[in-house]
Structures are given as structure tokens and as C-alpha cells.
């Protein structure tokens, strides 16, 4: 570079904004092709998902109202709060189709705000993980320590409100075993809950919230607790209760013996027991399939419309009379 042109900008395609570029515009071809592609992709996926969901057998039974004896009908709360009332309740479930193992047993709560900020924050991750941190209680109020100032392990409202209904299932008079192992996430059992942390002072005094814990079992094996403590996203949620490893034939009747302990009556919540099989897409959920098919269908419909539009309303491109400021001329 000689001195005379010392300040001359150097030429590069980048600095001159002349980089090679792909400049797509939405031509009729592109538009129709994309809609058809989406339609062609979505409809089959939707049908697959739909049929998968269709193969799932799900039995759901709402029992919170039915399990209150008639004489407590008007006052379910006093029934549930009274330690002396008999809480056991028998439900019979019809099996419409054969349930093929593994069958998952869920409890479903509705109108229960596990996602409430006060609730979500009310736990101590450190304490759950490490016995030395059992005094890490600052986030656990009001379930942090006992009256004599001993730390509660696990502390906080979540653990305190642990779900405590239990189910016993039998069919044709034969007990069905519910496997309660392996219902928690691996990251919970391995990382989040310590294998050397044991429940302490839990549900011992004051108000009793929910289930108590066996103090001889470390937290990392308390799978019900772990499942409960993975807070749900929405106020209507299902949580895994256990797994049944035997098939249940169609048209059988399942006798369920429920210990109806958990108080949902105060806040008008519902309780359901759900038995369900799964497929690749998960449990029974027609929504994904239906939605896929409808979006795919809409796209195909749009494709047809665009084809018609382009055929019947061809227009010379770039007609300036379409310009906004020609339609409303300035001045």
C-alpha cells in the first residue's frame, strides 16, 4: 500500500458487505412445498402417536368424595382430621382391556398448588444431600425445627405435606404386589438425596402434615418422598405410586383398599387413583396425536388454498399500484 492511499479501506467481501448469501423469498413453490411437507410429515406422526395413545389402557377412579362415609358427607374435614375415624375405603375398578405389565399406579391430585412459590422454596437441598448440613434450614420455615430447636430432617413444607394415602390392590381375591422401588429419578437417589441422611424429628410434634418416614431408612431410599418432592408444574398432577409387574386381564375387577388419609377436603382438591400402561409416547394422551393430525391437516388445507389462490389470482409481480403510498398518495 503506497503512502498516498494509506487510508483506503481494504477490500474484502466482508467489509464491502458482499458476502455470498442465500436470499430465499417465499415463492408460491416454496410456500406450497413447505405446507405440503409439513402436512405430509405431521399427519403420519400424529396417527402414530394417536394409535400409540390408543393402545394405552388407563383406569382412573376419583375416590375423595366416595371414601367419606355418608354420615360425614356434610363435614368431610372433620372426618379426615379425626384420628379415630376409620379411613379405609374399598373401591372396585372394572378392567375394560387387558393391562399388560408394567402397569403404573399413580395418585392424581387436583387443585393442589405444588408450584406455589412458598411451597417450592420450602426445602433445603443441602440438608437432603449431606448430614452435616442438617442445620441448613433458612429456607424451610415454618417446618424448620421442633419446639426445642432441633432440626427437622427433611425440613420444609414439601416434605411435611408428604402424600399419605395408601393403596392395596387385589383381583380375584389375590393380592397384587405394587413394586415401590425405582419410581424416583436416578438423579434423586444418586445425587440429590443422601444415602447417609436419615429422617429426624420428622412429623413428631405440632401439626402433622402428611406421611411419616421410617427413621431407619436413609433419604436416598425414601422413593415416595423423592417423587413427592419433585414438585409438579401445574395444580393438577399425577405422581407415581408404584409399579405392577403382572398383567391384569380384561373384564377383571380390581378391588382397591384405600387408606384415605390425605386431606384434600380443606382446599377442595380431588384425589384419583390411576392405573395405566405406557407406550413410547408415554401414558394415555390423545392430545399430541390429535394436535399433530390437525396441524398437518391445516397445513395441507393451506397448501390447497394457496394453490387455488395462485391459480385463480395470478398477478403480475411488482405492480406498483399495490404500494401503500400509492394507494394513499402523500399530499
Amino acid at each position, binding site marked *: 500500500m503506497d503512502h498516498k492511499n494509506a487510508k483506503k479501506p481494504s477490500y474484502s467481501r466482508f467489509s464491502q458487505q458482499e458476502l455470498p448469501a442465500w436470499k430465499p423469498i417465499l415463492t408460491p413453490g416454496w410456500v406450497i412445498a413447505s405446507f405440503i411437507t409439513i402436512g405430509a410429515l405431521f399427519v403420519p406422526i400424529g396417527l402414530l402417536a394417536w394409535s400409540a395413545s390408543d393402545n394405552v389402557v388407563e383406569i382412573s377412579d376419583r375416590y375423595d368424595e366416595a371414601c367419606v362415609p355418608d354420615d360425614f358427607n356434610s363435614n368431610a374435614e372433620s372426618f379426615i382430621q379425626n384420628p379415630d375415624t376409620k379411613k379405609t375405603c374399598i373401591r372396585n375398578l372394572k378392567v375394560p382391556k387387558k393391562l399388560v405389565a*408394567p402397569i403404573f399406579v399413580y395418585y392424581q391430585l387436583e387443585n393442589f398448588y405444588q408450584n406455589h412459590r412458598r411451597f417450592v422454596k420450602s426445602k433445603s437441598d443441602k440438608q437432603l444431600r449431606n448430614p452435616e448440613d442438617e442445620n441448613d434450614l433458612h429456607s424451610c420455615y415454618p417446618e424448620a425445627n421442633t419446639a426445642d430447636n432441633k432440626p427437622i430432617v427433611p425440613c420444609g*413444607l414439601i416434605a*411435611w405435606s408428604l402424600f399419605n394415602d395408601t393403596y392395596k390392590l387385589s383381583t380375584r381375591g389375590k393380592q397384587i404386589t405394587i413394586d415401590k422401588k425405582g419410581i424416583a429419578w436416578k438423579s434423586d437417589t444418586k445425587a440429590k438425596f443422601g444415602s447417609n441422611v436419615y429422617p429426624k424429628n420428622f412429623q413428631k410434634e405440632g401439626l402433622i402434615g402428611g406421611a411419616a418416614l421410617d427413621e431407619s431408612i436413609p433419604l436416598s431410599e425414601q422413593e415416595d418422598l423423592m417423587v413427592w418432592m419433585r414438585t409438579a408444574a401445574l395444580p393438577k398432577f399425577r405422581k407415581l405410586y408404584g409399579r405392577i409387574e403382572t398383567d391384569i386381564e380384561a373384564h377383571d375387577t380390581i378391588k382397591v383398599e384405600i387408606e384415605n388419609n390425605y386431606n384434600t377436603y380443606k382446599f377442595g382438591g380431588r384425589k384419583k387413583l390411576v392405573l395405566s400402561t405406557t407406550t413410547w409416547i408415554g401414558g394415555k394422551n390423545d392430545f399430541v396425536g390429535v394436535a399433530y393430525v390437525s396441524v398437518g391437516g391445516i397445513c395441507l388445507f393451506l397448501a390447497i388454498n394457496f394453490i387455488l389462490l395462485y391459480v385463480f389470482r395470478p398477478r403480475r409481480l411488482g405492480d*406498483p399500484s399495490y404500494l401503500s*403510498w400509492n394507494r394513499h398518495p402523500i399530499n
Partner: protein
Amino acid sequence: MGTGRKRRLHFSKIYSFKCGRNRFDDDHSQIGGPGFSRVVYCNETGVAEAASQSYADNYVRSTKYTPMTFLPKSLFEQFRRVANFYFLVTGILSFTKLAPYSAVSAILPLIVVIGATMVKEGIEDWQRQKQDYEVNNRKVKVHRGGGVFESREWKNLRVGDVVKVVKDEFFPADLLILSSSYEDAVCYVETMNLDGETNLKLKQSLEATSTIHDDSDFNHFKATVKCEDPNASLYTFVGTMEYQEQQYALSPQQLLLRDSKLRNTDYIYGAVIFTGHDTKVIQNSTEAPSKRSGIERRTDRIIYFLFFILFLMAFLGSVYFGVVTKRDLDGDRQRRWYLGPDRSDIFFDPKRAPAAAVYHFLTALLLYGYLIPISLYVSIEIVKVLQTIFINNDIHMYYEEADKPAHARTSNLTEELGQIDTILSDKTGTLTCNSMEFIKCSVAGTAYGRGVTEVERAMAKRTGSPLIVNGRDQLLDDHNDEDSTLSVKGYNFEDERVTNGYWFHEPHSDVIQKFFRLLAICHTAIPDLDEETGKVTYEAESPDEAAFVIAARELGFEFYKRTQTTVSFMELDPVSKKRVERTYELLNVLEFNSARKRMSVIVRDEDGKLLLLCKGADSVMFDRLAKNGREFEESTKEHVNEYADAGLRTLILAYRELNEEEYKEFNEKFTEAKNSVSADRDELIDQATEEIEKDLILLGATAVEDKLQKGVPECIDKLAQAGIKIWVLTGDKMETAINIGFACSLLRQGMKQIIITLESPEIIAAEKDGDKNVISKVSKESVKKQILAGKAQLTASTSDPFALIIDGKSLAYALHDDIKSTFLELAVGCASVICCRSSPKQKALVTRLVKEGTGKTTLAIGDGANDVGMLQEADIGVGISGVEGMQAVMSSDIAIAQFRFLERLLLVHGHWCYRRISSMICYFFYKNIVFGTTVFLYEAYASFSGQPAYNDWYLSLYNVFFTSLPAIALGVFDQDVSARFCLKFPLLYQEGVQNTLFRWRRIFGWMLNGLVSGVIIFFLCTRALDPESYRKNGKTAGMEVVGATIYTCVVWVANCQMALAVSYFTLIQHVFIWGGIILWYLFLLAYGAMPTSISTTAYNVFVETLAPAPSYWVVTLFVVIAALVPYFCYKAVQMRFFPAYHGMIQWIRYEGNTDDPEYVNMVRQRSIRTTTVGYTARSIARDNNLYHLNLELQAPK
């Protein structure tokens, strides 16, 4: 040093200075009083008295910050922005228990954003610092003591120093001239930097000090100056000097101002009076106003709107939260017992529900803050800086000859470049190069001169036809042409019939001889003979005059000597072919003034014949011709009209012979008039000259080109096609301005000129009376009347374009508050507006009037210090850095080297920048609204407790990491159409002028799109995942799974939306858009792999729960497509059936129709239909005229 004072004329004898010997008057009595307290001890820097003065040093600072003030000041600047302040408050609040997320995650983005802006500010200020350094370290010779001068930096100059400035140097401070290389101590000063005037000004020292001529004389020089305090008035100066125990009065005549330049004078000595920030020019420079673009102002309003939405959302949420919380505890009866309502802290206490709601309101403000794009401002700034880098590096805006690239000095106005409605342009040095060239002449009814003007060249290029001028194809001669301009400055005359003495063979050679003799004699220029080379150069009052003398010299009539009474020139004798010397006795000079519009000299030639030689404007000259002197009148008139239409300045040349009696009579009258002291002196002189300047014999006409800068007509034509209005504001006189109007096709034949002037007889009569009140009243009435008349004309005829020409005096009245709106209406209705004789302040006022009156974006372009006010007042000031002098450039926002670069700057860069910024801002709002909507909807399902579904870091990194880069790429690189098409379809520029890309409809459209996308994402995701198991292993989705899935969809949608909106994919776009998505997955992997104490809810969430679940992928695909389909449909329909202008051009490019002229023309239809200025319009107008003419000719037959 003695040679510097070689034989010199005493200029004071030719000119009659009014100053030079000053009298003490009223003003001087104020010295020592308030406002006049300055005392300067010249040449006594060592003396205690002088040292005790604490006047400012000569360091001039233009930086915004010093190292000390940088941090507090720039932080303050940052947090003055509402959005930044809001984020500061939320950042502080996030340390309290109110925060729904962790403090670090909230503060970090703010630090990144503020830090980036501060770094940018710092770099910009550092560049200003570098400029300051250059100026402050220029060297000047300063008297050290003992008669010795040494070089010293400007910044080290002190008040009272004696400096020596040599030819072509700038004055380092305001100096009091003591003496110069001329014996009578005058010096020439170029004040272009101060007032834009290019003619040289004479300054003269006091007689008392004018005898000091040697460095050594200053050994014992001592003087004390008492004068006014620093002030901004350039044209006043009051002071006294005590020298050799005598008092002398000082006037502006002795003051040399900083930033003006010494010309034609070898050196001067001066004493420093004002330094640094005390100098008049710096005092005059108002603090550069910080300009904000219209888009940014509108962005602010949108931010306020979003704040309103934010507060509304928070308010509604809080009310709901308060109600629900209160219901949780009814006496002893708890509802949601699992929340422990009986044992709650204040934030959730049902017993104090209103307080809880108030606290919750704050929490909600923090949480919904994601609605406000935190990174928007910093992104805009980064983008603009990068855009300016592109502007600075544009090779098409680099001026080879001066080695000057374009230079955007402020980066915050780039998009305004795409919205210019009106350009207010200076003339001299901006449109023209400020050099006059003798280009054509008409002698004895024959037109000579084959030079091609810029306009002719531009028109020829457009029509594509070869340009035939006098039988030669000039287009082919382009390169020759450049050679000739190199040869002699001020002379571009080419005609082999005349040059090299061939004129002798022309039919009217005697007339030609008289013609050129007249040029060589009738002027006031002073020759400067270089004794070594024998070459003569001239010092002339005006560049036109210089052009005449140069032309005469080049054609063989070389004027080389002037004495008090004679004019001598060398002439080629046609008969003997020898150079002979001719000396004419100069008897009288009848000077030029704007009323007379002519100048004459009366000379006695060597044969003793008395001649009156006269040159003047055609309007006055043709009336003064003798009956027998009109031989060539018709053809000359025709030529003059032709020349004028081509933008050339014409003068008519004529002469008459006088007999002795006639002359004697005249001389008596004239001398008497000159010596009279009465008020009507001028009138008497006029009368005397009037009587003698008649019965002239026409010789011919000259045409001088006020040379336009290269490419100016083309550029103006393009800008006109783009629908940009161009106003010319010039300090020149009306004729010149009109000429230039013609030259750059702002005016043309067939355009109706509305001229507003105060040169009418009654005004002049009123002025004679001298009562200021009466004058101003009469003048104002007159201006008002003229404006109203103009408006009436305007409404009466809609077909013809109008041009408004107004002079400075009238402008002063037109800018009065009560008529300025009428004036503006008139001006806006005209196709061209030319304001002549306007002062710098008027230029600024006109600019403000246009800016505020029309509410449109204005751009001012100029090169001199007289344009500074205008540049600062306009929305964008563009400085021309072509000529010397940095004042305009320093106060401009963007500096370019040539006017013609404006075309590319506006049509290409301006359009792109506007489009980029407005699209980027819309997109920012879009992506934040998508995100904010999902956050809000989730709240609705969490009883507005303030719990987000997302991990803290998802929240805070959304804006900064996953979605900002593609937006910035859009802002920096996007091109709707390529530069070539921007220039080919100038009308595209209207998109910016009409603000179609950033009008409320579009902004709200994007917001609505964001809302729709957010709603679709939220509901589809939650519905698809809850409450059933979402995996084969029967597990159900908790908050972390749902949160991560929604977030994934949001990131996908935001980036894919970008991909749909962008029409220009370079590798960079691909990397940023798809990279943003990939980055999210990488982040999720990396963050999830961290220990649970850090990653909390994100621990292993991808590896363990999301990735193995087919439904996660299925849902992502489905939700993303579903959220984008509405926009895609809209765009497909819009692009096909209602394309915007850029869309059409994209179609044209796509269809390959660019080479089909008919088709392209159709698209350009509008621009061609409505342009009224520019050479395109001009040639069309001319074609139409021809067409009508033909019709008329055919009709009778």
C-alpha cells in the same frame, strides 16, 4: 528575512480601508469595567504580573470524559435510561427475599450490558482524545526571549506570547496582529472555517507596531493590552494597547481568529490574546447537542408501553394473589394447609394479605421484567457501531485524491440516514469545488468553447447518447478532459479556433481581440510575477475575476503589471507574431456592487484613445447598448440563455469610446460625488456612472463554470428520485445561487420561480430614510405579501413545479414567529428551495424550522464553519472533509469527502441501517414478548405466587445468549436488496422516509405475533406433557421437565422466527441462528452436568429425562411448527399479494427481470412521475417541450 519584504504594493492605497487607524469611541470607555477586564502583558511571560494571571491555557478538549470522571459520569449516563434504571432496581431487589430468582443470575446480564456500553463509550472518547492530541500538538513559532523564536506546541501557548505564523498556517489562538511581511502590515486571512466565506479578508496591525519586522526586534518589545472578556462574537473586538507609553485603540481589524488561515502573506507576528476555550471560535461552538434518532425515541415509547403492560400484569397478579392468599386462612380454618398459612412470613401471610400483595407486586415486577429486553439498548449500540464500521470501510465512499474514507463520527444515528426527508445543503465547497473555470464565451455572435459542464455530462450519460458539443463527441474525451483540468486551474476552455492565436483567422478577429483585451484590463486583480519562472499568478477579489484574467493570459493577453495608474499586459501581435507589451493608463474604476451589477474601467490606450470597458449582468447590460452596438444581440442573448440554463455564470462584455469632453465632464462629476460626505454619496456616484455607462457596443459574453464537484448532478438526481427534497442554503449572492441551482438541475427552464427579495424600490427608499423601525416594518410587510402571493400562485397552478428563492434579508423576516409557518408551507410546496445570502445562524434557523415544522428527518451537509450551526441543528449533520478546515467535520455526525458519496450513504447504507435497526427492534420485542407470555401464563397456573417454571439461569441467559446473537446479526448484516438494487431503485428509500418498517402497526403486529406464539407454546406444551406420564418408564413430568420443554420451544421459535424474517443468509446468519439453538442444548448439557448445588433443578435434566423421551422431541417439533405457521401464512400472502417495495425488488431479482427495462420502468413508475428536480426531470421536461413544440408546428398545416 529582508527578501520577504521585497518590492510590494501598498495595498492600502488601492483599497480604501475604513479601519487601520482607529478612533476611540464609546465602546472603549468601558475597558476595565465589567465584561472588559482582560489585561494581557505581551511578551512578558516571565514577569510576575503576567504569571499571576490565570487565563486558560491553549489546550482544547472535545472529549466527554476525563479518566477521573469516566466511571461516575458514564454510569450516570447509563442509568438515566429508564430501562437500565429499572434493571438496576431489580438487580438490587434481587438480593432481597422478594426475588423469585437468585441475585447473581439477575445482576450478571446487567453487568454485561452496562459494561459493553461503557466500553463503547470509552473507545469513542479515546478517539476524540486522539483528535485533540493532533490539534493540540501542532507546532508554532513562539518568541522565547532575546529575540529568538522556537517551535512550540499549540497547547503550550500562553496568553501574551508573541508568535510568528507563516503562510498557509492556521492561527493557533486569537492573535493581535503586530506586523506582517508587508510594509504596511496588512495580511490576508482566509476565514472559511469561521464563516464559510472564501474570499480573503484583509487585516492590518496598528501603525505603531507595523515597523517591527525582525525576530530580533522582539527582544525589547513590550505592550499591554486591555480588552473585553472572552465572548462568542466573531465580528467585534474592543480593546486598547499601551505601547511605548501611548494608548491605541484596537478593533476587530487587528484580531486574527483561531482556525482562520494566513494567506498570501509570508508571515505575521502576533500577540496571543485569547487561548484555548477563551478563543472566539471555541466560545462560538455550542456544546454538540446529543442527538437521538426518531427510532430510538419511538423505541423508548414502546419500552414505556411495555412497562405499562408489565405494571398492569404485576398489578392484576398481585390482586389475585392477595385474594387467594387471604382465603387460605379463615379464622382458624386453613384452606391450602400445605402452604402453612397460619405460620407465614409477611410475604405470604393471609392475615396481612394486602401487605403480602404489595410485596408480591414487587416480586412480579422482577419476574415479568423479562418482558423488557434488557439487551436491547446495548444491542442497538453494538449494531450501530458495527454499521458505522461498514460505512467507514466502504470502498465506494473513499476519495482517492484526498485519501479520505467516509467517517461516521457518531454511531447513534445510522438509521436516521435511511429516513431523510429533506437535505439542506451548503453550496460552496459542498456542491461546488469553489473553483471557477472559464469555459465558454460568445464573441461577435459566435459561440466558442468545447468544455463540457458536469450537468451536460450527466445528462448525456443518462440518455446514453453521445454528447455532441460543437461537433465533437465529448463522452469519449472524458480522460482528455481530466488532463486539461490538471493543466491550468480556473481555465477549461478548449477551442482550436481561438487558442494558440488562431482567433486571428476568425471572421470577427477584431472583436475577439477587443474582447480579450477587455478581460485583461477590466478587473481589480493584482498580478504576482514570479521572477524566476516568469509566470504570473493573480490575487483576485473573487474566483470569477481570477478566471477571467487567467483565461486572458492563456489566450495570449497576459496581464502582468499593475501600478497605481496603469495596467500592463503582453499581447501576441497577430501581424508580427511577436509578443508586444501594452500599457493602458487606468483612469477610473467604477466598482461592482449588487445594485449596479456591472463594473467598468475607463482607460486611455497607447494611442491616446479613451475607452470605457464594461462587463456586467445581462439584465442590465442589454439595455445599455448603443443602437449601432446591437449587431450581435440576438445570437448573444441566445447563447447567454443556453449558458445560464447549463448553470454557467454569464457576463456581458461591452465597450465604448469616449471623447475628451465627455470624459472630462464625467470625471468632474464622479470625483465630486466620490469626495462628497453627504448621505447620498452613493446615489451621486451611481448617477454619475449611469450617465457614462451607456451607448455601449456589445462584444460578447463569457461563461464561467462554478465548478460542481464530480458527480453532483447524478447524485442530486438520484436523491430526487428517492423522493428526498433538497434545499440549498448558501451565503452567496442570489445570481450565483440561482446559477448553481441550474447547474445541479434543482432549477430548470419551465419551473416557475418565486423570488422573495427586499431589493424592491420602496424598501430601498425606506432604507434611505434610515429609520430602523420603519425599515423593518416595511420589509416585513413586503416579505409577508410576497410569501402570500407565492402561496396563491402555488395553489392556482398544480401542474408546474415551483422553485422558491429567498435572500437572507427577507429570510430574517420570514423566520419571524408569526409568518414562519406560512413561509414553511410555501417552501414545502415548492420543488426546490434556495436561500441565498443566509448567515450561519439563519441556516441553523431554517434547519430548525424544517425539522420542527414538518416533523420530518432533516440532513444538513456542509463543509465550513459557517455550517456548524446547521449541522448541529439538523437531525444528521454531514461534514464534507474534502477541503481543509475541520470545523464542519468536527461538529458533524458523519464526514464524507465528496457530496456525491451522499447517494451511497443514504440510499444504500441509510436504507440498510434503517431496515436493520427497525427489524431488529421489532424482533427484540417479539422474542421478549414470547418469553414474557410464557412466564405470565405459568404464573396464572401457580396462583400468581411468583414462581417461574424456568431455572434462574434459563431466565437470565435468554436475552443475552440464546436469542441476542441472531438479532445482532440481523442488525448488522441483513440486506433486503443488494446495494446495486438500492441504487437502481431509489424509490426504495421511501420506505424509510415514510417509516413503513417501524410504524405502530408493524410494531404491534410483531408484538401480537409474540403474544400468539407465546400462548401457543405454553398451552401446547403443558397440554402435551401433563398430567400423564410422558415416558415409557411411567414417570410424570415435574416442573423442571415442563419448564425445560417450554423453554426449548421458546428458543426454537425465537430463532426460527428470525430465520423466517431474514431474507439474506450468509454463513454468519446460519451460525448465529442455528448456533443459538445448539448453544441452548450445549448449555443444558454443561449446566446439567454441574453439581446439584449449582445446577439445582437443571441437574441432569436433559441427559436423564428429556433426551431419552421421544415425546420431548415430538412436542418440540410440533410446537415450533404450530407457533410459526401463523406468521408463515401472513408472510406468504403478504409477499405474494401485497409486497412492499423491497419485496417487489426481490421478486424482480428473483424473476431475473432486472434487464427488462420496460418492466423495471413500471416498478419505478412513481418515481419518474413525480420527480421535479434532477436532470432526469429536466431532460423529460425538455423532451415534453420539444414534443409540444412539434405538435404546435404541425397543427396549422
